[in-house]
C-alpha cells in the first residue's frame, strides 16, 4: 500500500476528535432562537377509543404555546405514515395496510401511541402541561402477543385486518419439500421463539422542526440513518411538502441499529407544528419514551423441520413462522420477516429444497421493524439451532454435520432454492480458521476442569451468511420495495486540491468520515486530512438512500468509486491537454498523470487548479471544474459470511451463564480499515450475546410494557462480556462491486446469538436439554437444571 492512509490501513478515525472533546453535534444539541419544546401525550392503554380530548387546563398552564391533536392534523390534511414495502399473501392479495397517523385519530393501539402534543417554552413546562391534557379513553380488549393474536376470539387491532393477519406469505417449493420429507431417513425438529428486542441506540430519538415563512421552506433536523428517505416519505406522503421546500438534516447521530431508519410520527409533528405556531419546535425522547415508541425488533415464533438422508445430508427444510408486526406497519416492517428472512434460510448449506411460510400479524404493541441484522439473525438462529439438533438426530459431531452440508467454495456462484445467488464464500475455510482460535481440541479438558469446580462448560458454533449491500433496485422492486436502493456520491475537487465528498450514506458510528476518505486518499494520493466527507443533509447531498443493511461501503462506497472514475476520466483529458499528449498515452497512478515513457507528469492538484482556472484547458471539449457525481445500483446482494464459536461456563447454583471465550471468523470481502471493521464486529457480537443472555422485551397480557427502562431491560455491560478473538480473510472478495467489499455492520449480531445458545445447550446437554429459548436468563437455566436433577450423565461420572 503506497498511501499510509489508503485501503487496508487502520487509520485512526478523523471524526473522533470532536466526539472525544464533546463537540459532536447531535439533534438535541441544536438550539434555535425562539425555539419551543414539544412533549407528546401518549396512551397509557394498549387499546382504547379516544372519545374526547380536553386541553383547556393544559392551554392555561405556564409557558404553553399550543396543544395539538390528531383532529388538527386531519383538518390540515396530514396523511398516514407510509409503508415502504408491500408484500402479497399466498393468495395474491396485498397485505393489509391500515392508517398510521402521527397523532392518533379516535383510537389508540399500543401503549405510547401519541394522541396529542403539547408545545411550550421549556421542556419541563411542556411536561407539566402534558399531564393536564384530559383524554377520555374507553379501554378496549387488547392482544399483546402474536400467538394470542391469531386465536379465534382475539381482539382485532384493526377492524379491516381479520384475524389480525397483515399477510400470509410463503416462499419456496412446497411440493419438492414434501417429497423430500417423504423419503427422509432422519428428521430434526424445533420449536423456537426469537425474542423481541428494543434496539436502544444510546442517543434517544429527537426531532427539530423549523419553518421559514419568507420562502416557505421547512427544515427537519432528526436522528435518522437516511435523511433523504425521510424527506421523500414525510414530504410526499404525510405533509405534502415538495422536496425543494423541505430540507432534512441528520447531523451526528448516536447509533441507530435500524431503529433510526424509519419515518416516525414525531418528525412530522414537529415539522407541521413549526409552521402552525410560527416557531421552531424540538422534541427529544426520554429513554422511557424510546422504549415505548422506537420500533422494536425480532419477535418470531417458529417451527422448523430438517429432512436428512441416512448420512445426515440435508434434503429439505420446512419452516413456519409467526411474526409480530406490532400495532402499525413501520416503514420497512413487511420486508423483514419475508425477503430478509426466508431468503436466508439456506444458510451456508446446500439444502436442495426449502419451503417457508410466514404469517405476519398485528398486535397492540409498538411497531416492529428492522433491528441490526433484520431477519437474518432470525434465519441464522433458526438454522443453526436446528442443525445442532440435526447433529444429535443423525449422530454426527456438530462440526461434521456442518462440513458435510456446506456449499463448497467451488460451487460458487451458487443459486439457493430461496431466490438468492451467493457470489463467493469458502465456508469450510471459516470453520478451519475458527477451531484453533478457540483451541477446540482442548475443549474436553477445559470442560473437565470446569466440572471439577462444579461448573458446566459448553461450546457452540454458528455459521452464517447474510444478504446485504441492499439492493438491486429492480429486484427489490419486484419483491415489493416501493423505492430504489442505489446510492449516490459526489466528488468535488476544489481549486487548491482538497476534496469534498458528498455521500448519501450516513454515519451514525460506522466511521464513514475516515473509511470513505481512505478511498479517496488511495485513489488520488491526496493527504487524508484534505478529504472531507459530508453526509446527512438533503440540502448538500444530491440524493441518498442511507445506511442500513450493511450497505454503506458496498453501495455507497461503490458510488464513490464511480464518481472517482469520472473525476479521473476528466482529469486524464485535462492532463493530456496540459501535457500536450494523447489521452491514450496518459498513465494514471495514485493521482499522478504521466505521459507514458516520459518523466512528464502532473499531480491531481495541478489538474484541479487548471480545471478551475482554465487558462490552459480544452474548453472546446470540456467544461471547467472538477466535480463529478455518480449513482450506483448494485448488481446483486453481497454475501458476508463466517463462523462464530462461543464457549460458556454455567454456574448451576445460580444458573448464571458466562461467555468465557468467543471467536469470530468473518469473510467481508476486501477490507478498507481493519480497525473499524473489528469494532463493528465487536459491537455486533455484544448485541447478539445480549439477545441470547440478557435482553428481552416483555409485554403483559394487557399490553403494558414490563421492560420499559434499563431497570428491567437488561443492556449488556462491560463486565457481562469477554474480549473477543476476531479474524477476517480477504480471499473471497465480492465479485460484482468495484471494491470487492461485502459489508460488516450486522455480521456480529447475526452469528452470535446462535453460537451462544448452541454453547448453552451444549453445556446443559448432560441434563437432557436440547433447546432453550432466549434469553438464557439465570432463573431459566437454573430451572431446567432443577427439572432434570439429578442429571443421569453427571451422576454416573
Amino acid at each position: 500500500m503506497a498511501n499510509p492512509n489508503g485501503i487496508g490501513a487502520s487509520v485512526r478515525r478523523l471524526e473522533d476528535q470532536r466526539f472525544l472533546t464533546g463537540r459532536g453535534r447531535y439533534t438535541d444539541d441544536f438550539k434555535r432562537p425562539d425555539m419551543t419544546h414539544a412533549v407528546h401525550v401518549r396512551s397509557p392503554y394498549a387499546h382504547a377509543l379516544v372519545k374526547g380530548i380536553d386541553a383547556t387546563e393544559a392551554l392555561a398552564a405556564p409557558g404553553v404555546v399550543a396543544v395539538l391533536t390528531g383532529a388538527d392534523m386531519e383538518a390540515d390534511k396530514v396523511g398516514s405514515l407510509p409503508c415502504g414495502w408491500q408484500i402479497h399473501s399466498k393468495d395474491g392479495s396485498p397485505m393489509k395496510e391500515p392508517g398510521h397517523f402521527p397523532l392518533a385519530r379516535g383510537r389508540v393501539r399500543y401503549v405510547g401511541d401519541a394522541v396529542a402534543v403539547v408545545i411550550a417554552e421549556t421542556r419541563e413546562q411542556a411536561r407539566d402541561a402534558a399531564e393536564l391534557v384530559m383524554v377520555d379513553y374507553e379501554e378496549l380488549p387488547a392482544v399483546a402477543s402474536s400467538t394470542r393474536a391469531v386465536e379465534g376470539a382475539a381482539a382485532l387491532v384493526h377492524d379491516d385486518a381479520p384475524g389480525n393477519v397483515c399477510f400470509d406469505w410463503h416462499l419456496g417449493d412446497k411440493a419438492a419439500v414434501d417429497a423430500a420429507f417423504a423419503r427422509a431417513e432422519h428428521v430434526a425438529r424445533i420449536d423456537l421463539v426469537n425474542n423481541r428486542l428494543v434496539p436502544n441506540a444510546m442517543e434517544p430519538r429527537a426531532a427539530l422542526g423549523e419553518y421559514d415563512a419568507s420562502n416557505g421552506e421547512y427544515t427537519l433536523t432528526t436522528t435518522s440513518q437516511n435523511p433523504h428517505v425521510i424527506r421523500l416519505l414525510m414530504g410526499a406522503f404525510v405533509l405534502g411538502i415538495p422536496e425543494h421546500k423541505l430540507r432534512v438534516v441528520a447531523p451526528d447521530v448516536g447509533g441507530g441499529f435500524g431503529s433510526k431508519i424509519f419515518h416516525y410520527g414525531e418528525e412530522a409533528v414537529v415539522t407541521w407544528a413549526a409552521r402552525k405556531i410560527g416557531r421552531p419546535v424540538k422534541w427529544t425522547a426520554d429513554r422511557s419514551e424510546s422504549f415505548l415508541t422506537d420500533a422494536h425488533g425480532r419477535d418470531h415464533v417458529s417451527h422448523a423441520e430438517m429432512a436428512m438422508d441416512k448420512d445426515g445430508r440435508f434434503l429439505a427444510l420446512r419452516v413456519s413462522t409467526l411474526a409480530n408486526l406490532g400495532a402499525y406497519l413501520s416503514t420497512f416492517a413487511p420486508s423483514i420477516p419475508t425477503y430478509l428472512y426466508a431468503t436466508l434460510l439456506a444458510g451456508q448449506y446446500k439444502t436442495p429444497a426449502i419451503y417457508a411460510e410466514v404469517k405476519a400479524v398485528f398486535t397492540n404493541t409498538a411497531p416492529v421493524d428492522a433491528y441490526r441484522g433484520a431477519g437474518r439473525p432470525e434465519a441464522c438462529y433458526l438454522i443453526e439451532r436446528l442443525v445442532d439438533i440435526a447433529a444429535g438426530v443423525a449422530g454426527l459431531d456438530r462440526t461434521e454435520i456442518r462440513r458435510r452440508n456446506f456449499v463448497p467454495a467451488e460451487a460458487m456462484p451458487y443459486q439457493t432454492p430461496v431466490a438468492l445467488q451467493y457470489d463467493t464464500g469458502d465456508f469450510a475455510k471459516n470453520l478451519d480458521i475458527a477451531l484453533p482460535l478457540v483451541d477446540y481440541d482442548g475443549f474436553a479438558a477445559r470442560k473437565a476442569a470446569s466440572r471439577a469446580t462444579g461448573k458446566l462448560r459448553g461450546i457452540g458454533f454458528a455459521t452464517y451468511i447474510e444478504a446485504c449491500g441492499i439492493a438491486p433496485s429492480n429486484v427489490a422492486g419486484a419483491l415489493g420495495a416501493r423505492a430504489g436502493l442505489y446510492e449516490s456520491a459526489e466528488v468535488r475537487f476544489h481549486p487548491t486540491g482538497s476534496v469534498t465528498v458528498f455521500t448519501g450514506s450516513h454515519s451514525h458510528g460506522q466511521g464513514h468520515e475516515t473509511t470513505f476518505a481512505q478511498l479517496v486518499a488511495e485513489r488520488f494520493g491526496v493527504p487524508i486530512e484534505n478529504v472531507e466527507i459530508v453526509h446527512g443533509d438533503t440540502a448538500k447531498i444530491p440524493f441518498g438512500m442511507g445506511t442500513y443493511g450493511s450497505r454503506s461501503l458496498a453501495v455507497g462506497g461503490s458510488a464513490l468509486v464511480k464518481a472517482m472514475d469520472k473525476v479521473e476520466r476528466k482529469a486524464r483529458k485535462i492532463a493530456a491537454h496540459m501535457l500536450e499528449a494523447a489521452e491514450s498515452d496518459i498513465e494514471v497512478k495514485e493521482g499522478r498523470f504521466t505521459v507514458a515513457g516520459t518523466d512528464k507528469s502532473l499531480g491531481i492538484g495541478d489538474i484541479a487548479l487548471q480545471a478551475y482556472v482554465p487558462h490552459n484547458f480544452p474548453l472546446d471539449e470540456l467544461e471547467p471544474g472538477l466535480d463529478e457525481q455518480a449513482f450506483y445500483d448494485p448488481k446483486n446482494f453481497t454475501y458476508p459470511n463466517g463462523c462464530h464459536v462461543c464457549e460458556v461456563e454455567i454456574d448451576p447454583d445460580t444458573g448464571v451463564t458466562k461467555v468465557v471465550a468467543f471467536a469470530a471468523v468473518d469473510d467481508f470481502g476486501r477490507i478498507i480499515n481493519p480497525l473499524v471493521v473489528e469494532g463493528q464486529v465487536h459491537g455486533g457480537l455484544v448485541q447478539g450475546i445480549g439477545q441470547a443472555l440478557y435482553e428481552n422485551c416483555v409485554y403483559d397480557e394487557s399490553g403494558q410494557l414490563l421492560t420499559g427502562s434499563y431497570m428491567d431491560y437488561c443492556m449488556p455491560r462491560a463486565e457481562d462480556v469477554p474480549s473477543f478473538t476476531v479474524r477476517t480473510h480477504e480471499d473471497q472478495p465480492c465479485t460484482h462491486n468495484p471494491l470487492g467489499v461485502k459489508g460488516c455492520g450486522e455480521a456480529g449480531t447475526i452469528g452470535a446469538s446462535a453460537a451462544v445458545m448452541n454453547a448453552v445447550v451444549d453445556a446443559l446437554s448432560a441434563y437432557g436439554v436440547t433447546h432453550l429459548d432466549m434469553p438464557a436468563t439465570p432463573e431459566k437455566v437454573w430451572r431446567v437444571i432443577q427439572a432434570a436433577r439429578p442429571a443421569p450423565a453427571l451422576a454416573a461420572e
Partner: protein
Amino acid sequence: MPSRVTMTVNGKTVSREVEERTLLVTFLRDHLGLTGTHVGCDTSQCGACVVHIDGRSVKACTALAVQVEGCSVTTIEGLAAADGTLHPMQAAFREHHGLQCGFCTPGMVMSAVDLVRETPDLTEQEVRNALDGNICRCTGYHNIVKAVLAGAEAMKAEPSRIAAE
C-alpha cells in the same frame, strides 16, 4: 422557583438563575451550552452524562444544579488541554477505536479518568467491573477496555497534567 447557582465549570466561574428543579445536566447543556454531556436514559444507568464534581465522577442527570453550588465541575469539554491536545485517556480512546457513534463517549471517558486516578493499576476484569455505570451500544466494550488500560498507562507517564484538572 428560580434560584441563583454559582459554580466553577471547567475552571471558569459561572452563575445563573435557574429553576430549582433544574438538573445539573440540563444546567450544563441548556444554560451553559456545554452539550458534550449527554442524556441517554432517565433511570441513572447509562452514564452518558458523567461529569466530575470536585474530581469525582457523578451522573449529572442525578444531581440538581443547586446541589452543586460552590463546587468545581469538569465536563468532557474541559478535559483536553487549552491548545486542544487530548487528555491521555481521550487519546487512548482514539488510538484504540474505543468509540463509534460518540454518544456514550464523554461519559465513558470521564468515568475512566476518575477510575484511573483512584486506581492507577487495573486489570482488564477490574476495568470491566468498574464500568458498570456506563452503557455503550456500539463497541461491545472490547476496545473501550483496551483504551482504558492504555489510557491508565499513559496517565502514569503524565502525572502533572492529570493533577492539574
